[in-house]
């Protein structure tokens, strides 16, 4: 979403040859589960291949290569009084005996489950059909041909760059190249058939430098893409990792204070991810989100617009149809600060008396729940450098640690490290502090958003600033920061 428009084209007619085989197995499973007594059967089959090569200090450390398959099913038994009994089952055993066992298990478990009046397949009229599935360019056929030698070569190259930047970098956690490809088919007894395939490649490196007091510092950099040519260069990634590591040397605590907090891209993405968990249908009807009953109210500052867009070309979270077979669509979650919709599958939609947003995700085990695709805080216009320059005094967060977020209350408290900002410039590196606030208030006090969005992860945000948060470090709150 860096301003690039996309035009979904239509899928080429050529399917990978494995798709027909997977469809056959799925059809057989659906028939068997129905024969054993289920009224609705939905089969999901996937097949994947991956290779990863990790090197450390120039030598190969681990080369892993395998392919795998799994078959999952959801079965529903209709109840006379309305509603269904529901169970799921998954197996890696695709032999005939394995598939029989799977079918028997799922039907037996569905009989054990109790009638859920809200359960059921989605409305058939909403199913998408294959000819309307947009081509999203998620598959790069050249990825599977990358062999161990080439993978080791890439990992060695990026590590060499990182280790060569500065003599203070004297060790390494290693560097890793990995590639993966996969095909998934979904077949339901209600008439949906769909398939998709995708590839993924990534490169990661984490150099280490000695710091004072026996401490070491390490920071990583990485790149990932659907396509081989979408990866950043080893030169760029290696240098970034080295610079991030060196910048942490001499990090120290600051005194406890309240101040503006700037979230760098990756840390900001993690914060937006916490928000994403609170707009999912399951969290809403379970009252496990602070956003219950907040539709069309202000949940963020007017600068904030957040979308969930499964249709981004080459997007890491892109998909042509959702986990129930509904056509994918872009959803505006927050528009200029107002919450416009939750993300719903058909179950949570029924629970809330709403309509599915096409956001169902089906796990390999056959289970379905609402989930994000590409969940993005849209960028502003200033550069991150300008944003920092406009900050008189504050804390720039580059990394966060721990799980300190309670979705029920929105209470947020996590470990953080980064840089102290003084007069619009990085003054010194900071570690071993916590930042805390309430996510509701935090998003409402976002007062600047930069333009540096990239889509290297499926939940993404540009650099942004929150007007004020509590930063806890040394001493009590009463003592202010003083240098």
């Amino acid at each position, binding site marked *: 979403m860096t301003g690039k428009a996309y035009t979904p084209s239509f899928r080429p007619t050529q399917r990978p040859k494995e798709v027909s085989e997977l469809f056959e197995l799925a059809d057989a499973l659906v028939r068997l589960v129905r024969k054993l007594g289920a009224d609705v059967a939905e089969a999901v089959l996937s097949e994947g291949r991956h290779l990863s090569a990790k090197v*450390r200090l120039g030598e*190969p*450390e*681990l*080369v892993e*290569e*395998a392919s*795998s398959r799994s078959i999952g099913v959801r079965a529903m038994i209709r109840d006379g009084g309305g509603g269904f009994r*529901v*169970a*799921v*089952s*998954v*197996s*890696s*055993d695709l032999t005939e005996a*394995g598939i029989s066992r799977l079918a028997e*298990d*799922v039907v037996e*478990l*569905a009989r*054990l*489950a*109790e009638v*859920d009046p809200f359960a059921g397949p989605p409305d058939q009229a909403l199913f998408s059909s294959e000819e309307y599935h947009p081509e999203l360019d998620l598959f790069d056929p050249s990825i599977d041909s990358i062999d161990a030698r080439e993978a080791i070569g890439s990992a060695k190259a990026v590590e060499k760059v990182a280790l060569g930047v500065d003599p203070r970098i004297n*060790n390494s*956690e290693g560097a890793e190249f990995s590639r993966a490809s996969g095909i998934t088919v979904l077949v339901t007894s209600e008439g949906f058939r769909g398939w998709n395939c995708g590839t993924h490649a990534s490169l990661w490196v984490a150099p*280490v430098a000695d710091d004072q007091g026996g*401490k*070491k*510092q*390490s920071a990583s950099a990485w790149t990932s893409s659907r396509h081989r040519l979408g990866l950043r260069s080893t030169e760029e990634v290696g240098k970034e990792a080295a610079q991030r590591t060196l910048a942490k040397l001499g990090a120290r*605590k600051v005194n*406890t204070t309240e101040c503006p907090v700037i979230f760098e891209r990756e840390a900001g993405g993690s914060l937006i991810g916490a928000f994403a968990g609170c707009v999912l249908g399951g969290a809403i009807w*379970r*009252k496990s989100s602070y956003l*219950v009953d907040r539709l069309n109210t202000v949940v963020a500052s007017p600068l904030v617009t957040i979308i969930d867009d499964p249709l981004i070309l080459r997007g890491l979270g892109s998909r042509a149809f959702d986990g129930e077979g509904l056509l994918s669509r872009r959803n505006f979650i927050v528009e200029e600060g107002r919450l416009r919709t939750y993300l719903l599958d058909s179950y949570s939609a029924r629970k809330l008396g709403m309509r599915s947003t096409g956001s169902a995700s089906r796990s390999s085990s056959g289970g379905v729940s609402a989930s994000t695709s590409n969940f993005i805080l849209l960028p502003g216009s200033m550069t991150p450098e300008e944003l920092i320059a406009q900050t008189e005094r504050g804390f720039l967060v580059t990394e966060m*640690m*721990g*799980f*300190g977020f*309670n979705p*029920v*209350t929105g*209470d947020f*408290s*996590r*470990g953080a490290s980064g840089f102290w900002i003084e007069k619009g410039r990085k003054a010194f590196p900071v570690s*071993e*502090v*916590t930042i*805390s606030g*309430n996510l509701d208030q935090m998003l409402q006090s976002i007062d600047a958003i930069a333009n540096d969005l990239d889509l290297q992860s499926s939940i993404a945000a540009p650099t942004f600033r929150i007007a004020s948060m*509590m930063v*806890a*470090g*040394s*001493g*009590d*709150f009463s003592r202010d920061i003083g240098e």
Partner: protein
Amino acid sequence: MKRYIAPFADGGAFAVDREIAERLLAIALSKGGDYADLFFEYEVTGSYFYEDGILKSAGRGVSAGLGVRVRKGDATGYAYTEDLRFEAMRRAAEVARSIADGGQSLTVPLAPCELPSRYQADHSTIEIDGERKRDLLRRAAEKARLLDPRIVRVEASFSESYRAIRIATSDGRWLWDEQPLFRFGVRVIAEKNNVRRSGSSGGGGRMGLEYFNEKTPEWHAEEAVRQALVMLDAREAPAGEMEVVLGPGDSGILLHEAVGHGLEADFNRKKTSNYSGRIGEQVASPLCTVVDDATIPQARGSIDVDDEGMVPGRVVLIERGVLRGYMHDRHSSEFFKLPPTGNGRRESFRSHPMPRMTNTLLLPGEDSPEDIIRSVKRGIYARKFGGGQVDISNGDFVFSLTESYLIEDGKLTAPLRDVNLIGNGPDIMCKVTMLGNDFALSDGVWTCGKEGQSVPVGVGCPTVKIRAMTVGGTGR
């Protein structure tokens, strides 16, 4: 008759005997690898989820396969297959062996090894009728719902697994182990004046349903409800450094993060841990003795054998504050020329083993918990935890509190909203000034993640007082 039998077990659909394993090991080593092992794994999982007054969903998973590992120097080749026909297993061995590119090396004949018996496979819940698990969930949910009208949501879950492993190593070990495990949990939400708070309770281990004779579903329901109701009145936690008292049991998460990960020997072999090269040095207060103990009967983190065929025992990591040793897998023990400690674990046959914790414990001291709390002028008392994380290189770690209280003049006063604590491992361990005589082991709920692999673990400790630690609240 048993319903779930590992396909590679004697009598299974793809039975693997010693002769087949020896042939595969010979193929794995035929390019000159130094060491190879075969890891056959069969895992059956079950999950039962109760909410809205019904057993809403039930699930089953079956997974089986072989992982082949070949080591040449410090390099490892790894491949796996879910297809247990000989041709597919041979191909996996060939892929793994390509990490080496030399000639033939030798294997020794496989011989069965004696294993301890820290849990019993016939106590696995997996073969027990689903109705009994559904009843346990219903009992918990009903109890929680009826306890207090402010309880607006109740969820109860039961998840179980049965894992059978067969290991063959090129140094001649031939092992079989069956590992039962289950986990039970209740989660509730209380609501008052539009304020909502959650509470939870859970437990389990490598045992059967006899667990519930001592800790009933109703007990867990009461505990979850108690927490949610207490939290309705919680106020903002303070911010800054102060005295911290950790309650017994689950607060062993402190050791897991502050000490445990940093003492996994892979980080020390690579010299990327802040504990590297510090054996014999004082790294904690003299009050502290920390062990990793895989032998506790039926505990979640206990194992008879690790995932590379070694039998773990009880490793002393820190003795009276002095660093004594690391947790090793085969690779690191060879590197340090020390006996392996049996800490080589892996998530499944799809992953390579690495040094991991089992049950990590801080042994008790002599103070009474009441005296410890009484000694604090102003601080925090931590009772329940959400999870933690550590940065191995610099030793900074965090953990989050989901139930904690303010201590004022030696007494617990107000409950506090969720808050995160942060510290540096050796620094915080040196600030332990009092240690309770009330050691407790966590009930079986914890799972540890490292490099994308999850394994079940346990933690344990007595009441602990830390002189100063940074509390990440919002209050003043």
